[in-house]
């Protein structure tokens, strides 16, 4: 009899879709069906609408787009027959949501149907309105719904009540219109109406204080009576669930009583008896009973103080907690979190059980229990609880370790009674779950270690032992190599032994083994390798006897594929090789890191300075962090200083120009920033050398460079973002010497420009002579002559110079770094002026030297260059 229609029946379509073996096949069937439905829609034949929409709903459930069927819903709703309306409303709720414009078109149909003579049509309209109405529709149709709350048939009353909850959720202003109607529903006998009426009252109470007051005054007693009646009622098969008459109604009544009793002693007082009755008499061997008990406990805990009831509630939770049913234990943990607020002691009694729940195989329960445990921790039980948790960490699932270790760390940090305990616990966590530990956690650990000077020896020895066993835990390895780098001498010599320690014998070579292992391990990441390299540099000074071996390891890294590592290896090799005189001061132990500033920073209150320090790292095109390199060379230099001329410094030059690009190109502007950096570096630390050591360490490891430098950074927070572009030209030139074949010797045309006295002080005079190489007018060779005017010898003489962006400066090494009394030394500079003919040379310089063992620093700006250079 269907032969007169084209297309398949719904049942056949479902069958053919189910018969599809592959997703592609299914897509094919659906595409064909959709095409048919579209064609049928275009024909606008009302006979097919019903079936088309049914098909579309099925297709929609499979996840295919069905928007083209939305108008069909509206047509079906507008048609007079009940079957059409029924499927039309179903389609409306399924295919549309409240945000679609199409929905507005249905308002009129809804209004008509709400006034329909057939109560089932009214029911359909109420249901649709309750499920998807928007705020606008809610306003338009609220009067109809309000009227329907008084409808003769209970089926409509209950639907109207729930529809009203949706309306007041969407438009809270309408709440007062519904208060009277809602209160009339509370007197109903029909359970469905009562349930929805109570729900509506609850909703109104949460929205409006006046409604709450109204219900509290008028309805509290009536509700208590209803609850009592239903609790004491005889067996009613229609509503009975596992021996309880209508648990759903129970729960809603208890929920409404909760808001009425909360904050009102009188109302709370009224409900005490019935709550006690529900709490004691409800059967707890089935889920339905437990659901009621659970709601009852929640109400008891929310209403005003009735301590005897609370004891009852806590006891119920205790029973729940020891229940074998996981669902019950889950809700118990949930409730105990709330119970802590008013009875910590009672919850503490269940500590052992709760700890057991942390080890549950069920992730949901573990998560709840862990939350609860962290609330239970206080100064008295922190050691015991931490021990339990750490013991469990050893055997827990891999995927739980992250949550668990994070919690342990936060507990340990918060409640740690002493530093040694903190360090011990953190080492355990790092050993067990090091790969899950977040960066800020191990950064914090390093800060604490750095501050616990009496524990340095102990810590480095513990770490050494731990890292031998747990070498696969990345963060443990990082902390260990950092400490070995810093305190390697304490490790080898067993310095600062604590009574609890067993003496261990570690040779210098053992210590280096650990670091070598970290740097050569293929799965170590860049941060770890960089830290290892710095540690090696430090150890080369701490362990002079095996510095050859260390040098070999460093040299191997010259072949690293990581540019940063490669470059560092070359620099460090240079330090080890040629600069024994400055090496020890260069790699001195780091100054104590400032804990307070670190904590402030960690809590994220200094975002500005974070970005300040992070900027150089991100601005380098090849993705290698520039900050470490730049800071490595930052031997207390002042300005943007050029490196000595060599083919290998192009990269450095790049760095400088990149960073300069971000500045305002005015050397004056850059000066502000760098001066500040300098200031930062010299605040509160004994010697400049140490400063530099720290800045190497701080910044040398890419990933961590934001953290330990906090102390320095904080002070610079107002600094412009282009600091850290400093590099040194003086003694550190030689770092880069390894790269340069030989200082370039260029033919000079003789001085075409008059020599100048660039600088003169009471002790020092600097003269510049100029020459232009043939063929390139932009270039100028400058020979600087430094003349000692004092009767004493200057040692460690360093000349540094900086130029604005339009200039490029290459410095050759000075003829000597010792300037005898009345003697002189020379140094060649090559300046390239990209604005030749427009701007003349300008240079800022700084001279540092030791006079009678005292550091002297002289600075000046040179503006008197001859024009036309």
């Amino acid at each position, binding site marked *: 009899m269907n032969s007169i229609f084209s297309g398949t029946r719904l049942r056949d379509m479902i069958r053919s879709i189910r018969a599809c073996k592959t997703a592609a096949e299914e897509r094919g069937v659906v595409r064909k069906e959709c095409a048919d439905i579209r064609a049928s829609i275009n024909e606008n034949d009302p006979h097919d609408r019903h079936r088309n929409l049914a098909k579309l709903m099925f297709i929609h459930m499979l996840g295919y787009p069905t928007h083209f069927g939305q108008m069909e819903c509206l047509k079906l709703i507008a048609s007079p027959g009940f079957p059409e309306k029924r499927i039309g409303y179903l389609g409306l709720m399924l295919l549309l949501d409240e945000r679609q414009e199409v929905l507005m078109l249905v308002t009129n149909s809804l209004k008509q149907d709400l006034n329909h003579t057939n109560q089932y049509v009214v029911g359909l309209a109420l249901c649709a309105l309750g499920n998807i109405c928007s705020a606008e529709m809610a306003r338009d149709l609220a009067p109809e719904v309000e009227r329907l709350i008084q409808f003769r048939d209970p089926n409509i009353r209950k639907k109207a009540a729930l529809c009203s909850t949706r309306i007041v959720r969407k438009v809270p202003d309408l709440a007062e219109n519904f208060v009277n109607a809602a209160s009339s529903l509370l007197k109903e006998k029909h359970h469905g109406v009562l349930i929805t009426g109570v729900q509506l009252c609850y909703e109104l109470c949460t929205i409006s204080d006046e409604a709450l007051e109204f219900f509290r005054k008028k309805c509290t007693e009536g509700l208590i009576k209803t609850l009592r009646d239903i609790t004491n009622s005889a067996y009613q098969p229609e509503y009975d669930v596992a021996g309880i008459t209508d648990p759903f109604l129970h729960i809603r009544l208890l929920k409404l009583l909760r808001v009425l009793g909360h904050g009102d002693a009188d109302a709370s007082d009224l409900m005490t008896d019935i709550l006690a009755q529900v709490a004691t008499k409800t059967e707890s061997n089935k*889920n339905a009973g437990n659901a009621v008990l659970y709601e009852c406990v929640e109400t008891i805990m929310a209403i005003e103080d009735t301590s005897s009831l609370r004891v009852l509630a806590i006891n119920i939770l205790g029973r729940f907690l020891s229940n074998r049913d996981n669902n019950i234990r889950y809700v118990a943990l949930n409730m105990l979190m709330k119970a802590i607020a008013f009875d910590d002691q009672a919850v503490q009694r269940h500590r052992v059980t709760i700890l057991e729940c942390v080890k549950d195989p069920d992730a949901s329960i573990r998560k709840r229990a862990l939350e609860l445990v962290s609330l239970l921790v206080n100064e008295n039980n922190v050691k015991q609880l931490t021990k339990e948790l750490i013991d469990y960490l050893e055997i827990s699932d891999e995927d739980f370790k992250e949550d668990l270790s994070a919690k342990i760390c936060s507990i340990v940090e918060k409640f740690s009674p002493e530093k040694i305990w903190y360090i011990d616990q953190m080492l355990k966590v790092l050993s067990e779950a090091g790969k899950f530990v977040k960066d800020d956690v191990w950064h914090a650990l390093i800060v604490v270690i750095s501050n616990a000077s009496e524990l340095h020896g102990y810590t480095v020895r513990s770490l050494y032992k731990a890292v031998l066993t747990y070498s696969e835990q990345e963060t443990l390895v990082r902390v260990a190599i950092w400490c070995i780098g810093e305190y390697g001498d304490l490790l080898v010599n067993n310095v600062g032994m604590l009574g609890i320690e067993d003496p261990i014998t570690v040779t210098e070579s053992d210590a280096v083994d650990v670091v070598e292992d970290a740097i050569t391990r293929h799965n170590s990441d860049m941060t770890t390798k960089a830290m290892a390299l710095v540690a090696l540099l430090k150890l080369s000074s701490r362990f002079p006897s095996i510095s050859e071996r260390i040098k070999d390891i460093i040299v191997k890294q010259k072949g690293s594929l990581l540019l940063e590592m490669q470059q560092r290896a070359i620099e460090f090799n240079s330090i080890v090789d040629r600069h024994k005189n400055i090496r020890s001061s260069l790699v001195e132990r780091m100054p104590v890191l400032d804990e307070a500033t670190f904590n402030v920073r960690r809590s994220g209150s200094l975002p500005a300075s974070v970005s300040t320090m992070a900027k150089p790292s991100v601005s380098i095109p090849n993705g290698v962090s520039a900050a470490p390199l730049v800071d490595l060379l930052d031997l207390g230099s002042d300005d943007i200083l050029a490196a000595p001329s060599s083919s290998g410094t192009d990269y450095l030059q790049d760095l400088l120009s990149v960073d300069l690009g971000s500045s305002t190109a005015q050397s004056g502007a850059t000066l502000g920033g760098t001066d500040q950096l300098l200031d930062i570096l010299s605040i509160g630390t004994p010697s400049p050398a140490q400063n530099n050591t720290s800045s190497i360490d701080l910044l040398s490891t890419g990933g961590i460079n934001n953290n330990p430098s906090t102390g320095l950074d904080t002070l610079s927070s107002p600094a412009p973002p282009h600091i850290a572009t400093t590099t040194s030209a003086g003694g550190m030139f030689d770092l880069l010497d390894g790269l340069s074949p030989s200082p370039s010797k260029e033919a000079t045309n003789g001085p075409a420009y008059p020599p100048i006295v660039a600088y003169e002080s009471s002790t020092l005079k600097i003269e510049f002579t100029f020459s232009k190489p043939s063929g390139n007018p932009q270039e100028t060779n400058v020979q600087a002559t430094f003349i000692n005017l004092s009767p004493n010898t200057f040692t460690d003489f360093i000349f540094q110079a900086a130029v604005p962006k339009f200039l490029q400066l290459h410095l050759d090494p000075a003829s000597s770094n010792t300037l005898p009394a009345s003697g002189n030394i020379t140094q060649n500079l090559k300046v390239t002026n990209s604005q030749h003919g427009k701007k003349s040379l300008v240079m800022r310089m700084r001279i540092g030297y030791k006079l009678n063992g005292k550091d002297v620093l002289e600075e000046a700006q040179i503006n008197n260059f001859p024009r036309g250079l």
Partner: protein
Amino acid sequence: MIHFVLLVSRQGKVRLTKWYSPYTQKERSKVIRELSGVILNRGPKLCNFVEWRGYKVVYKRYASLYFCMCIDQEDNELEVLEIIHHYVEILDRYFGSVCELDLIFNFHKAYYILDELLIAGELQESSKKTVARIISAQDQMVEAAKEEAGSISNIIAQATK
């Protein structure tokens, strides 16, 4: 309140979805994908609650079907389990020992029943008998319309049956 109801088969096929809070189509499919991944992978003895994006999802498995309801943090999980069971019992009574195939071929019936049980994400009726009575009254109206000779709905109701 219940934010959505989801019926998923053990193979991850969606059998019914009902949304009481606004979710765009994109969000809907994302939610379904995410949740079915989580829920289908949970072991048999574990609790029936999953914490998810600040909500709780209460689920229960009946034969090859997972019934899931998403509720707020402070809602009563145990009660929602009862609501799920309530729904299943009504389905069972309506279809006569319901199975997954009933819900596939008569998915619209499953929706009609759900609409008599929940509105605006709240429970509307605690009596299974009442729900059954209202549903059968409406089914009869459809039948009656079908009876009318030559009526269009006669054929359409057959087609959708």
